């Protein structure tokens, strides 16, 4: 059994409430940090732990924290990114709804480390029921003196607010999130300046994912070194994986980083193999944005090494034969899945979610959808496949925020690894109606043509 740091008490009845959480050792990290450590010492532990951001980019958290500008007299903020909207990713939802106090505790300890006295949890609108859970937990924390003025008599003050988003994926991008939190339209900002210098209300701000902040709790409790001892190489600690698709046991799993992908898919401890005894066809390993890999490349690297669930191993081979850890949204597809139709769903999603600021993303995401629609409508040509390729290439890395590339990568990878499927549809349009399975999303608007 792999070690569990976040979901250790997941199955304890009543863990959602304060009393049980506290009995299980909850809020120990706050006591330890506020009473026995100074803020810098907490930052040092986080640095030592090797924790990397769990929101998708995998940026070392300790380093991010140490970039925070600390001019005297200027308030600083910690903002928790709970906008979780990437198709295939639902781990934050799981964590927040089951063990809300873990996030609240992480927010207090982290805010202390950063010298923030007002912190926010920005949560996506569709998680309205979790808002209630979080607000209850926060109220309990206030009632027990973990929040508010003069916490534990140390003189440290912290107010924690939950802010509900309007349900836009783009508001998960940290600068769009800050705009939205300020009450504006959620358009990503140009960088520099980075949030660490000018973030919320132009003040130094750290934005971290829910899971990242939760991980600070065991790091402070057990020490950074203990955390770093788990995992492989620069992929330390544990990670929550949202497993979905054609698996026998989809769900949220906490894994030790470095777990072989094959073990994750096929072992009984985790996903228990492909459902209905079918063949695995492909996997999107880190949420809809990351490149899709065919079975042979997800189980083993191009060099034939076993592929591991770690930042480095998943990225092995670059985008030619590798992919990314992303936010840990692991979507498995069996051999009945149509990659083209699947891609069409993803593309519609990105088109729908593009904020529309940058011309390449605004027009490009729309055209990727339109061209795919044309192919799936039976009117595609081989030139359209090339046009798609060209389109994605001129979006990637050419935009204000990474949504552009998030939209481009799936297209690139699908063509790279499954070009024959596109060609099949172009040459034999009648085959399109045979498609049984593909990734579907609810509530997408009418397709554009």
């Amino acid at each position, binding site marked *: 059994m792999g070690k569990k740091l976040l979901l250790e008490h997941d199955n304890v009845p009543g863990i959602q409430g304060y009393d049980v959480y506290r009995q299980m050792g909850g809020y120990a990290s706050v006591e330890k940090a506020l009473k026995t450590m100074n803020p810098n010492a907490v930052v040092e532990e986080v640095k030592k732990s090797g924790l990397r951001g769990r929101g998708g980019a995998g940026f070392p958290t300790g380093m991010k924290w140490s970039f925070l500008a600390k001019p005297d007299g200027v308030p600083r903020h910690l903002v928790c990114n709970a906008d979780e909207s990437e198709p295939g990713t639902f781990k934050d939802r799981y964590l927040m709804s089951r063990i809300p106090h873990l996030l609240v505790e992480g927010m207090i300890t982290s805010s202390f480390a950063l010298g923030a006295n007002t912190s926010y949890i920005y949560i996506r609108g569709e998680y309205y029921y979790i808002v209630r859970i979080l607000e209850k937990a926060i109220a309990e924390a206030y009632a027990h003196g973990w929040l508010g003025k003069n916490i534990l008599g140390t003189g440290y003050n912290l107010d924690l607010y939950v802010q509900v988003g309007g349900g*836009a994926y*783009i508001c998960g991008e940290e600068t769009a999130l800050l705009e939205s939190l300020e009450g504006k*339209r959620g*358009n990503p900002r*140009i960088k*520099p300046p980075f949030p660490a210098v000018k973030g919320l209300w132009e003040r130094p701000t750290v934005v971290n994912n829910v899971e990242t902040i939760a991980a600070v709790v065991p790091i402070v409790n057990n020490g950074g070194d203990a955390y770093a001892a788990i995992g492989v190489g620069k992929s330390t600690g544990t990670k929550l994986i949202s497993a979905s698709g054609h698996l026998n046991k989809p769900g949220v799993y906490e894994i030790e980083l470095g777990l072989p992908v094959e073990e994750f898919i096929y072992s009984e401890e985790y996903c228990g193999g492909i459902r209905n005894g079918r063949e695995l066809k492909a996997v999107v390993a880190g949420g809809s944005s990351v490149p899709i890999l065919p079975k042979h490349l997800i189980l083993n690297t191009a060099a034939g090494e076993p592929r591991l669930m770690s930042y480095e191993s998943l990225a092995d081979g670059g985008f030619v034969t590798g992919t990314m850890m992303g936010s840990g949204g692991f979507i498995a597809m069996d051999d009945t899945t149509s990659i083209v139709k699947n891609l069409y769903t993803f593309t519609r999603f990105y*088109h*729908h*979610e*593009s*904020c*529309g*600021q*940058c*011309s*390449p*993303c*605004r*027009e*490009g*995401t*729309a*055209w990727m959808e*339109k*061209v795919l629609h*044309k192919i799936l409508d039976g009117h595609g040509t081989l030139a359209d496949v090339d*046009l798609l390729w*060209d*389109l994605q290439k*001129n979006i990637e*890395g*050419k*935009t*204000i925020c990474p949504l552009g590339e998030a939209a481009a990568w799936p297209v690139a990878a699908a063509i790279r690894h499954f070009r024959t499927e596109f060609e099949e549809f172009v040459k034999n349009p009648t085959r399109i109606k045979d498609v049984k399975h593909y990734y579907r999303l609810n509530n997408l608007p009418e397709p*554009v*043509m």
Partner: protein
Amino acid sequence: MTHVKEKDITARKTPDTANTLSGNAATDVKVAYIDNKAYEVKDGETILSFIRRHLGHDLVPTLCDAPNLEPFGSCRVCSVDVALTENGNVKTQASCHTPVMANSYIYPSSERIQKLRKNIIELVLTDHPLDCLTCEVNNNCELQTVAAKVGIRKVRYPEGKNHLDRKKDMSHPYMTSDFSKCINCFRCVRACDEVQGQFVLSMAGRGFESHIIKSSEVSFKESDCVSCGACAQACPTSAISDVFESKSVANVEKTRTVCTYCGVGCNLEVATIGGKIKSIQAPYDAEVNGGHTCLKGRYAFGFYNHQDRLKTPLVRKNGELVPATWNEAYDYIEKELKRIKSDFGPDYIAGISSARCTNEENYLMQKFIRAVIGTNNIDACARVCHSPTALGMQRTFGTGAATNSIIDLKYTDCIMVIGANPTDGHPVTGAKLKQFAMKDKPSIVIDPRRTELAKYATVHLQLRPGTNVALLNMMLYYIIKEGLEDKQFIESRTEGYEDFKNEILKLNIDEMERVTGVNRELVRKAAIIYASANNAMSFHGLGVTEHSQGTFTVMLIADLAMITGNIGRRGVGVNPLRGQNNVQGTADMGCQPHQGAGYLDVTNPEYHKKYEAFYHAKLPNYAGYKIPQMYDAALNGKLKALWLMGEDNVQTDPNTNHVRAALEQLDLLVVQEIFMTETAKMAHVVLPASSFLEKSGTFTNGERRIQRVNAVVKPIEGTKPDGQIVADIMNRMGYKQTDYDPKTLLEEISQIVPFFAGVKWDELGDNGKQWPVLPDGSDTEILHTETFKRGKGKFAYNDWRESEELVTNGREFPYILTTNRELEHYNAGTMTRRTGNNEILTEDVLMINPEDAKTHAIKNGEMVCVISARGKIDVKAKVTDEVLPGILSSTFHFPEIKMNDLTSSIADSEALCPEYKVVAVNIRKSKGKYKTGKTS
């Protein structure tokens, strides 16, 4: 990031000044490489400004970038390749917002960059109508230019969903939109936010569905748009434009000139086709207004060839004004003036000059009255607006002009705005002040009305009208009490402080709090904010001057600056917001009864001699009449002839009945005008003048900037420039005066006005010069840097005194009426009401607090009868909490409601500026029916 604006303007001024450095650059200059060639890098500049500074404007195309806006980064066509080391990994970056890194290698036109740009434009064109040839901005469209530049030949995309069917919006008298042409660059949104601060435009919808909306998705007409036109000028295509199609360049000639509607002095670029004005835009390189104007400057030019323009002289015959030739009119005037001069003497003749006219015309006018007629009876409309400013600041500093420049707003830490409503009255400066306050920077507003600026200010001191002196004394009290004086400045640069301080400390704060109606803690807070800012600037307007204690208030504002040491450097000072475009110049040119051109005292024997020698004429050595004294003299038979240059005194001076009665006594009333006004109707001779668009000269704006006014079109047939009319009459009266020509007149002026010494018509350039201009031509942004004009700055204490009007009439007329302006109209509306502005704002309104409205059962939009000791009028009620209970405020742009039937003849004790801002009135529901009228 204001540096961006500066950089881009310089970039445009000096293109192609490539100062390439040799390969191994000197060690202390930072360099970066463009196509492997080293160029010097400036701190904080973007890659785009770096490239443009060295290699010109056109190397890197841009669409969403604009010279007066912050970088935004949405179009991505400015992308360039950047490597951090030689032969290092190349990354694509948007040059417009990415700071240039020292020692980086930039490739602005690599093959993949060219391909990227082409792809982007291709994508944009898939959702853009391809009707360039019939589009109004053909050949002046940035999309068209960039598309041609990147070499799009064909669009590879199939037919697809697009937005070409979007409806045009033609609802507004000026602004138009056609969003089928929109390329989502956000320039309009940013212009509205960053330049105007109106927040009308925004992007709604996401991604491909995103589209520009006005307010909450309404038409321009229904939106909160103030028609400044910044968005239309910023839009790179014709998606937002105006009814004049200002961006079209077909057959257009351009002339640069200066706006005539207020003392900001915005530069205008006027486009004409075949000698007729087509449209106006704001030059980006204008130091005053950098690409911005308000709707008056940009759109309200339609009056100039309005059918109502006077086109022939009129002479009164048998009680009626009938058309006459110029000769007949001049004959009449000559005869009458000569008769009056010989029968009664020169002092029975007076002239009133105009702050709307050029410096050269004002100079001529006072020269005519002084040297040709032989009297000092010359005054100007500044009497009724900023005369207390000139006098008060002269008394304290020695110079009656703004100490600093508007550009100082970039360097100040605190603004204090007293008795001014700049977002309506001085819109371009107002927008800058609003931007300042909106960013939460320390700002203080002292005004009886909750003005737009007051809504954003840190502190709003909403005092009872007529208590400026009491309130400022309180501020001074708290500054001294808190020990926030700048002792060193007081010690070294001022005099009279000890007495002043003793008087201030004797103040009865309880009483001051009661009379001003402002909580003392709030005043204390304001005092601390102003006094503890590193640099604080004050601005004031007619809410300071048009009071019985106007001059004293100005002196206190000056005292506040001195006690806190806010004089003589960047970002500080006392800055009157001049009302009319050339108030400053009119006074500089000597259009006042006690000082001649250059403010020399006419009673001082030395200066008297100097003027006599200069004009080759005999001059009186005593001061003449101020405007109110002229009326009194006329009523007493002491004044027989009055010459008005472009003034409508009947409508604009207070106490209309009094003015009318005075004018009726005259033997000769000459009026130079562009339209038939109420005053002109009373004249014996009316002379048709040319408007500012039809003549050349100079205006001096509120920051002492002498700017060139260049004739845009020929004078409307039958009219003459005011200066030419005056020159004609001077000759008729036997004085040899050359024809009106700004260049030669400026030469003459530079010899007599000391601070014009170095002013030369040909050297004024596009942006003019700020006086004093030294003989070598160098000018002055900031006054009093070392010493004051009068040596030491002089503190002088004055007690607050209740206005006579309230003491006498307050019991019977318990409400206080004050006046205010609206953005859309200019004073009596003679010009603006003959433009589309009249469709935007159609009538005057009286602001009344909801409580008072309830007391009198008056509903919003109903007519109210307002009664003062002198008369009564009917006006429409606007029920609003912008005024406090007991206070009323009315606009005065529609003379038919006869606001000045109410106002009194009370004036500032020192400068005789009328007290427009305090009138004791009573109100009741109107009984009669309001008759809407049009100006005839």
